[in-house]
């Protein structure tokens, strides 16, 4: 049962769903934006499945999913292209959500995991594993996760002074990020040539190495984190009101913060482990999504859908737009850079 308009004017159309124990309220615009972005991501992903050395038509790709194809076409679509395409969408969503969590908690659009050192921490952690232990999907994932958590803990401790205030967190984060970047550079310089080459390509952020074995572990983690976030999203919304209001409305501040930070770090870390540090998606997706949905604060779901769309689209550009395939991180840097310039000009015009 859904009522198009309730008795309360929320300043925007809302959908209210009440059935049995379920009673939910959504903003119509947010729901539509999510739906549109989801459809767009699906379309982009379909196109990505068609493109490559063996060009396929959309009906051909669809027939593979319906089980009507076999042989080389099935292998190309399901075994070669699908993990990468799925990875692009899921990793993009993970980065978008991770950025949204940090930006919401710190109330600052600059506080995304790629700026405040978490991505750098995951990258350094993964590099150490590659150089010292020689690699392997699971060890690299664990290394990235630990690196991300250590960086988060470092930033948190250094920025802590009777609570963590957003701006101090960002400044400390940028410092930690730079130091970890230096550590990573040192590690690469000291490594054997082949290892250094692999590390350098991976370090730009690339979906090239993503096949099913590389995709499944992060996919499982990301799905689990998304499930946890359906519970944690409420405390996140309450935290936006300030600590006193959130606390007096029944939110336990420290457990909520810890859970949210662990979720956000886990999302960035598994993506970094699988595809390297992909820049700017976590930074840009939440803010673009906010402008599209005109929602209050930074919303998780639209940020996730937008991140998925941006990364899926960027990967097509990275693979097929130029004569030579590029790492997708290069494309997201260009898109994200463009976004930053737009944001700065827009904000400057608005204020002057």
């Amino acid at each position, binding site marked *: 049962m859904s009522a198009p308009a309730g008795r309360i004017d929320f300043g925007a159309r809302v959908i209210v769903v*009440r059935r049995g*124990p379920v*009673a939910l309220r959504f903003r119509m615009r947010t729901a539509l934006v999510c739906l549109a972005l989801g459809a767009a991501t699906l379309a982009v992903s379909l196109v990505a499945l068609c493109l490559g050395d063996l060009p396929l038509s959309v009906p051909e790709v669809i027939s593979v999913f319906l089980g009507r194809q076999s042989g080389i076409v099935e292998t190309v679509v399901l075994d070669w292209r699908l993990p990468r395409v799925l990875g692009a969408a899921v990793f993009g969503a993970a980065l978008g959500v991770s950025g949204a969590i940090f930006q919401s908690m710190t109330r600052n659009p600059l506080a995304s995991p790629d700026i405040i050192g978490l991505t750098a921490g995951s990258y350094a952690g993964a590099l150490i594993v590659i150089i010292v232990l020689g690699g392997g999907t699971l060890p690299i994932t664990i290394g990235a996760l630990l690196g991300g958590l250590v960086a988060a803990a470092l930033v948190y401790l250094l920025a802590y002074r009777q609570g963590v205030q957003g701006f101090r967190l960002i400044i400390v984060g940028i410092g930690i990020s730079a130091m970890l970047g230096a550590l990573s550079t040192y590690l690469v310089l000291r490594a054997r040539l082949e290892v250094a080459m692999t590390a350098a390509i991976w370090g730009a952020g690339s979906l090239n190495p993503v096949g099913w074995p590389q995709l499944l572990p992060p996919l499982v983690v990301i799905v689990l984190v998304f499930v946890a976030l359906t519970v944690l999203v409420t405390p996140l*919304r309450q935290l936006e009101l*300030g600590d*006193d209001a959130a606390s007096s409305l029944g939110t*336990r501040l420290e457990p909520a913060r810890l859970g949210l930070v662990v979720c956000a770090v886990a999302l960035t870390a598994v993506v970094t482990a699988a595809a390297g540090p992909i820049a700017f998606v976590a930074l840009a997706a939440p803010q673009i999504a906010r402008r599209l949905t005109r929602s*209050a604060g930074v919303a998780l779901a639209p940020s996730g859908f937008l991140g998925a769309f941006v990364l899926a689209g960027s990967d097509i550009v990275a693979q097929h737009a130029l004569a030579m395939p590029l790492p997708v991180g290069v494309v997201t840097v260009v898109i994200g850079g463009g976004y930053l310039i737009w944001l700065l000009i827009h904000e400057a015009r608005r204020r002057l």
Partner: protein
Amino acid sequence: MTTAPEFRLGADAVTVGYDRRIISRDLSVQIPDGSFTVIVGPNACGKSTLLRSLSRLITPTAGQVVLDGRSIASFKSKEVAQVLGLLPQTALAPDGITVADLVARGRHPHQGLMRRWSVADEDAVLAAMAATGITDLSGRLVDELSGGQRQRVWVAMVLAQQTPLLLLDEPTTFLDIAHQIDLMELFTDLNEQGSTLVAVLHDLNQAARYGTHLIAMKDGRIVAEGAPAEIVTAELVEEVFGLSCLVVPDPVTGTPSVAPIGRVRVRAS
């Protein structure tokens, strides 16, 4: 909530402070049920600290805050939030939030994972907006409102919480005199409808006029408490604020009213 003690909220020999700095030591207080209790005192006398410990925002290092006969620390966060609402001094409205959306955030203690917008939630938000006179602003952005309107929205959010006890931390600061009186009358209405209110106020005359129970604090201690008509005297004001004054009946209500003496100057007109 089966027994009905004469007070539901109180502090039992609490020592409270921030970090290692102790503000109040061994402080005991009981909030009379059904009262509009007002805490007054000079800056840094510990009145906000007392309010914050009553609302469990800070944990006493010794003693305990008691709610319904039990230590408040033994309740779940949401259980406390169903009984005790707080209008904090600093609350932040997320960018781009509308009035109704913000008021609806007050329903959090009554909501579950899948039950986030029940008919009861809707009723409570409607009632809270009606009580504070902001129904017409419902769809507006909070950022666009005036200070007085915005404070009413925050009060509505706390009312939507539907708690029998309401704590107000300097609710009228930053408002002009008309909006202050407006808000104080609203609180009086709520009190007459059965809510127990505890407010920290700076204005002694308003405290004496609207409060039914006054707590005067100085240096972390309670100097006097009781009905305003009984305890507000020139001696008390001198003792608590170090201000010599005359206490005269308020020409409108007859409640005690404080006229500071200072260095008397009469300007020729």
